[in-house]
């Protein structure tokens, strides 16, 4: 059985993957719907998608979303590369990915049709805004004839609607300008789609009124558009089915919300400040797809958290290190190229043994690569990418919600072991949303930090049972001391060029990091116990792998799945678990970086499933591979 929601046992610094916004348990049922909205980036697609998912989620369904922006800020209207899309999968069963083949596709123009139609299931529903299928737009999209009329879409259930026109008609008395009326059309579309999915409008109407509280005419116009779209559904005779996903939901009672991975990281920073009573300091430099974390944090100065936009990545990490020296919980956020720039300073953090959390929201590389696409290719950089023998802890989040728990755990490790910790998330989970139950503070693993204040017999590199040195806050009388990047005497902390001392320090720093694994909760094996095939994953591919494994099992294949949060050190029980299986499959959005770590550590043959296409692994393809090996 896939035990997606079973909280792991708690170790000292470990925490369950999936409890801020805890994931619900429910009864089995297989029905689910995958829907994608697509249109010009100016069409409000992201907003429509978000609103739709919220409305669905509040119905108690599980959802996973996948927003997909064009690389350009504002691509010219109607172009293929200017198409923006937003995909949602929902179900009353656990949902792990935003889905593959679409049940419903809503397109606002020909370019959106062209770019997305291939993903629609045969027999799937296609809603198209006919008003935009003008000769000029068709040409921009590369259509020679109008696909809505030339029969080429016959295999789909086509619902052509003059969304622009109907919306304009509905709002002709609103007193708004034509431009403003045009802007309401996404609410018309939303109303229609909500009808299609059998959702009521009440809540949505309330939300529109709150959102546009300052502008009542706009609010009312949008409400009218929503209602008109819904009404159009009711009267429309073009189609005959509404989607009805069983709503026998069985959620743990509580307050729920949806959250993106980037916001979850920001919430973790706030929570760390709350739990410890310490100031949190975020030193950062904007870079896609990590910037949203900073955007979230700058709005929260009243939560004992200082955000600093530095002049570059190096200053970002260095300012954080300065704050760590000062006794704050310090973090820096970035993505691949920024990570590359921070490595020298991370080395200094490792050498001075200061707690520092470095969050790398991975994107397509190398170099500038594919900045708006996801990838898992910074793992080896995180583990090995510094000069000298410079081990640091590396952890990875598996889902948007897990970004919260993983970041908090990173802070617990950093302060307990006095070490930098690298948190790997990725562009996929950073922007996707997941729904879960809101945790209360006491639900979370405890997090307390102690500074040394006793000057008696203080030695900078004296270590406790975890091999960690003491954290001393400047301002504490009698504990004045100097640290730095030069090698230091193993006890006194004075500069030392002694060879034996250096060897000792190098080994001690390595042993300290290795020792972190004693705190990890036992790994959770999902899937069949009697399997011969073990799928080992890490980070943001969790959804795809869990879904593929689940489908394979449902289809009668024996396969097990273990998903790693801890990449350095690796969990102590992993070797023993791997020994139980004949074949190890490691799916990654890279050319096999976890494979390198596993092969090196366990000397095991590993099968890789590697696709580096800037997007989540395709469940169907992965499933084929699994079933070939199981």
């Amino acid at each position, binding site marked *: 059985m896939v035990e997606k929601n079973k909280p792991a046992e708690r170790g000292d610094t470990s925490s369950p993957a999936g409890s*801020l916004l805890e994931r*619900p348990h429910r009864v089995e049922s297989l029905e689910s719907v995958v829907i994608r909205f697509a249109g010009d980036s100016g069409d409000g697609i992201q907003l429509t998608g978000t609103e739709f998912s*919220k409305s669905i*989620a509040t119905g*108690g369904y599980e959802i996973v979303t996948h927003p997909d922006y064009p690389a350009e800020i504002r691509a010219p209207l109607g172009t293929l590369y200017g198409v923006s899309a937003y995909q949602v999968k929902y179900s009353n069963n656990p949902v792990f990915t935003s889905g593959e083949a679409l049940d419903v596709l809503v397109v606002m123009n020909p370019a959106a049709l062209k770019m997305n139609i291939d993903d629609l299931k045969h027999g799937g529903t296609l809603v198209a805004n006919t008003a935009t299928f003008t000769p000029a737009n068709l040409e921009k999209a590369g259509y020679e004839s109008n696909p809505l009329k030339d029969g080429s879409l016959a295999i789909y259930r086509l619902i052509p609607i003059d969304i622009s026109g109907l919306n304009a008609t509905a709002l002709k008395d609103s007193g708004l300008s034509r431009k403003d009326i045009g802007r309401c059309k996404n609410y018309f579309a939303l109303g229609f789609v909500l009808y299609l999915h059998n959702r009521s409008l009440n809540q949505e109407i309330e*939300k529109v009124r709150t959102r546009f509280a300052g502008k009542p005419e706009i609010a009312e116009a949008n409400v009218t558009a929503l209602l008109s779209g819904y009404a159009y559904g009711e009267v429309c005779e073009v189609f005959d089915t509404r989607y009805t996903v069983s709503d026998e939901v069985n*959620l743990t*009672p*509580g*307050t*729920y*919300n949806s*959250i993106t991975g980037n916001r979850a990281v920001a*919430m973790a920073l*706030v*929570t760390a400040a709350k739990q410890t009573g310490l*100031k949190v*300091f975020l030193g950062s430099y904007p870079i896609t797809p990590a910037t949203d974390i900073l955007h979230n944090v700058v709005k*929260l*100065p*009243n*939560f004992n958290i*200082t955000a*600093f936009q*530095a*002049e*570059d990545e*190096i*200053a970002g990490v*260095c*300012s*954080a*290190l*300065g*704050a*760590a*020296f*000062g*006794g*704050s919980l*310090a973090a820096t956020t970035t993505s691949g190229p920024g990570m590359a720039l921070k490595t*020298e*300073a991370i080395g*200094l953090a490792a050498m001075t043994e200061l707690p520092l959390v470095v969050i790398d929201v991975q994107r397509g590389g190398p170099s500038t690569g594919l900045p708006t696409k996801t990838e898992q290719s910074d793992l080896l950089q995180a583990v090995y990418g510094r000069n000298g023998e410079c081990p640091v802890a590396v952890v990875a989040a598996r889902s948007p919600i897990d970004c919260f728990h993983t970041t908090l755990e990173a802070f617990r490790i950093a302060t307990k072991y006095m070490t930098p910790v690298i948190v790997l998330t990725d562009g996929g989970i950073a922007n996707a949303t997941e729904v879960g*139950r*809101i*945790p*209360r503070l006491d639900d979370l693993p405890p997090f307390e930090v102690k500074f040394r204040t006793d000057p008696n017999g203080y030695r900078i590199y004296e270590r406790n049972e975890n091999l960690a040195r003491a954290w001393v806050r*400047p*301002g*504490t*009388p009698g504990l*004045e001391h*100097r*640290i*730095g*990047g*030069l090698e230091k005497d193993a006890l006194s902390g*004075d*500069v030392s060029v002694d060879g034996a001392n250096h060897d000792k320090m190098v080994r001690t720093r390595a042993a300290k990091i290795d020792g972190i694994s004693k705190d990890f909760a036992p790994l959770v094996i999902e899937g069949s116990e009697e399997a011969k095939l073990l799928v080992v994953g890490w980070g943001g591919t969790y959804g795809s792998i869990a879904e593929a494994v689940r489908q394979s099992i449902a289809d009668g294949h024996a396969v097990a799945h273990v998903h790693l949060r801890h990449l350095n050190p690796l969990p102590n029980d992993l070797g023993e678990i791997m020994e139980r299986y004949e074949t190890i499959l490691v799916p990654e959005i890279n050319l096999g970086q976890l494979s390198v770590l596993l092969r090196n550590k366990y000397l095991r043959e590993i099968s890789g499933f590697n696709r580096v296409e800037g997007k989540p692994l395709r469940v169907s393809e992965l499933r084929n591979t699994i079933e070939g090996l199981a």
Partner: protein
Amino acid sequence: MQKIQINDLTRKDFETSQDVRWCPGCGDYSVLKQVQLVLPTLGIPKENFAFISGIGCSSRLPYYMDTYGMHSIHGRAPAIATGLKLSRPELSVWVVTGDGDALAIGGNHFIHTMRRNVDMNIILLNNRIYGLTKGQLSPTTQLGRQTKTSPVGSIDRPVEPISLALSMGVTFAARAVDIDQKNLRDILERAAAHKGTSLVEIYQNCHIFNDGTFEAVSNKKLRDDNRIMLEHGKPLVFGKNRDKGIRLNGMRPEVVSLADGKYTEADLLVHDEQTDCTVMAYFLSRMHNPDFPVPMGVFRAVAEDCYGQSVRSAEAIVEGKRGPGDWDTLIRGADSWVVE
């Protein structure tokens, strides 16, 4: 920082057990001494000092100061100090750096620190050479100077650190010579008292790799004709016999003699370290030997909000509007829903 009574601190309190490992004759020694003399006078508890440095001979200074300190990585001290100060406003934060550390690899942090005006004191030990790596060209090396990496003479036009800092709006900028103890000490005191970023450029003799580069302004016999001591509100007079001055001719400065009666002090420019615009100080920072005397003393000292204050007042605005943040509300988010 509030000035509190701390009667019993002395220079000794700021000395460490470490052997000081600069070359005999290095100008860094005298700077260390002045810093150790000034600190006890500031009324700041010893445990509230933090010294951050980069890499270089100069950057070793924190090891010899019995305060909190970090000898960090090359060029990054101002960035580290910024994070420290923003998160711990009550500390007295000092940065010790060299011409290579601050102006070559560290140039970007240097300029942005000036711009932000974070409250810290930056001591820039300018010896116009890379000392620690044994004698290469630095950004302040004079044109034509032969070094290990400029065997036929440097062709890189030197940086004038004070001009650079001014162009980024530095609120306190001063210059002193390592062995001019009295002046150095005065300036360090004023820098410490200044709220915001204070930059003190110290002409420091590297006895081994660039000996004598500051001879004209440090040698007691030569210096009076080659330097000018800046004094706020006073005309720009210099010379052994105080018989020369600086006058403005259009937008160009000009050295004039006060000896032949043609000009008097009234014709001279009057130093004003407090004007809000940086042009006066910039103008002074462009004066160099041999055409002009080199200014020593305080170029600029103006009161402006420092970054930390602004951060805190921005925080206060938000807190004022919204009250202290409530974790539960925040974490719940705007449109949560309840399942019963």
